[in-house]
């Protein structure tokens, strides 16, 4: 699995919610994209991630 451009090994499938929790991120501050499609907030607990998936987790930073 590739998360934010970094290759990682996924032992077993996990949900998007679990991935956010595992990284210590606040779910209300991020958006998640799975293989190019947004995972809506209300689907995060049911959408499962598998090895081979590409995930982007994004948030807001300062910028003009």
């Amino acid at each position, binding site marked *: 699995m590739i998360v934010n451009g970094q290759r990682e090994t996924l032992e077993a499938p996990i949900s998007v919610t679990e991935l956010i929790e595992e990284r210590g991120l606040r779910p209300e*501050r991020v958006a998640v994209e799975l293989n190019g499609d947004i995972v809506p907030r209300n689907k995060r607990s049911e959408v499962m991630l598998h090895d081979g998936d590409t995930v982007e987790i994004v948030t807001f930073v300062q910028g*003009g």
Partner: protein
Amino acid sequence: MSTTDNGATSQDNAEPSLDELVGTATNTAILPEPDAHAYDSIATGESDPLILGGHKFTSRFILGSGRYDLNLIKATIENAGTQIVTMALRRCRTTDNNLLDYIPKGITMLPNTSGAHNAKDAVRIARLAREVCQTDFVKIEIEHETKYLLPDNRETIKATEILANEGFVVMPYMFPDPIAARQLEEAGAACVMPLGSLIGSNKGLRMRDFIEVIIANAHVPVIIDAGIGRPSQAAEAMEMGADAVMAYTAIASAGNIPLMARAFKHAIEAGREAYLSGLGTVTEGHAVPSSPTNAADYLH
């Protein structure tokens, strides 16, 4: 200019007419005797709102949130009197000390698409930004390189059309080409945001002649987005009829950031009021007397 998407002017609303308060631009001598606070509603924007995608704003100052100490953001926003703050979307490593924790409630968040090289990237970033903060506002920025950071008008028009159709309030950063400005309007932009000079250059309105053409022909607000380096330049932009000014570098590079934010607020309000008042005529090669010139009344 102050128009909504459907072309209705803000004066069509039931609010106090601006004309009632300021009289005509050419004959202020016939004003009824105003009380001292007759113009307060203009200064506060209540009778002269900036309308973007049907949303009303009383401030005409959009503030960039970049690069200064997060602890200064609240004071800077308050001193600026701003209601719209821009931000960027990036990969998330931590949500500790997140920018959104420092933005006061009630501020409209304006995510930009910086990092986008084409329309497809910009659309992707805009959708993700909407997912983070549930806002429909997006400032499109499509740039190919980091030396000049010039916007790609053609890709920006493409992205504007796609995002406007998805219900976004699209605010496109653009090179001040009047033809592109018209095409952005046709594509559904809520405003156009021409650059005054290169981003972060503090050089002011180097593109003035072309921005004037855009302002003269626009049916959506014209917001000067880049290069405004000092309050006098912001006032100049507003005097010539810009609907709002966005600034960041001028404020972030000041010695006292919140104080400079306040200076910009005053300059933008002053420029707007000057524009509404109607500037005097410029003369060339001769003076215009400001005292009576009847020869018979002189003491000699």
